[in-house]
């Protein structure tokens, strides 16, 4: 039976479209960044990936229902820990870089850059989506954050077409991070259980 959370792909799709209308909507994407982390930190495991990720649903829909996926096995290297955690590290460095660019605009060192950077390389002019007169750093963050979201969507779509509908989930930084948090929590729990059993014996 379909529940409300089966339709979260509509949210993801709308989010991507809104970025073409007004870049400030990009801030809404923080929900998809903070919610999964909070859920895993507070003991909800990977409930976000499992039940509430609109992006995962969107890929499933495009790949399976619309048959856009070749449905091939993903290459082995993409599922290794090295690649997954390496990609997460790279992703986080680029994210920090984006935050630093926002800081430079906040501080006044740099002017606002009305571009979307795709795949961390290609700069696409995007000034038509900015009609605001608020503090430039707020807009700069929106451009930067939307670049991250659009880049990961493009990578996800390429992976969906080449391999299986949700193959992006194998190396999605959000998924790797939340699984990593769950593993760390389990290790810490095991250690404290171990200490408790030692002291009680």
């Amino acid at each position, binding site marked *: 039976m379909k529940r409300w959370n089966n339709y979260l792909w509509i949210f993801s799709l709308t989010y991507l479209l809104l970025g073409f209308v007004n870049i400030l909507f990009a801030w809404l994407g923080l929900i998809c960044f903070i919610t999964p982390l909070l859920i*895993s930190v507070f003991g*909800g*495991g*990977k*409930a976000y*990936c*499992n*039940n509430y990720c609109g992006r*995962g649903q969107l890929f*499933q829909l495009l790949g399976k229902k619309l048959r856009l996926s070749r*449905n091939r*096995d*993903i290459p082995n290297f993409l*599922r*290794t820990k090295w690649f*997954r955690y390496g990609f997460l590290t790279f992703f986080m460095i680029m994210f920090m870089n984006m935050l630093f660019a926002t800081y430079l605009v906040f501080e006044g060192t740099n002017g606002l850059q009305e571009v979307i950077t795709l795949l961390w390389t290609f700069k696409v002019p995007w000034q038509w989506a900015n009609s605001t007169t608020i503090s430039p750093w707020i807009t700069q963050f929106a451009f930067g954050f939307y670049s991250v979201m659009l880049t990961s969507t493009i990578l996800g779509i390429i992976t969906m077409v080449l*391999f*299986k*509908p*949700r*193959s*992006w*989930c*194998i190396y999605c930084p959000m*998924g*790797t991070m*939340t*699984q990593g*948090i*769950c*593993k760390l*929590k*389990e290790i810490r729990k095991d250690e404290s259980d171990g200490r408790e059993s030692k002291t009680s014996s």
Partner: protein
Amino acid sequence: MKNIKKAVISNQCVACGTCVSICPFNAINIFKGIRAVVDVELCVGCGKCKSACPGSIIEIQEMEESQ
């Protein structure tokens, strides 16, 4: 003793949950956000999870039913 088929999940699982939502018999759970685990009592070895798993890390293995 007869042979039965069951899904077996490798430890490369990323706990994405695709297999959980696809399994018609609710035979898979995500264990503490770490990995998927199969309930061998419920699994019938239909292979739906194997074809849906984005990492192709599920195998359908034949086992001997122990009774």
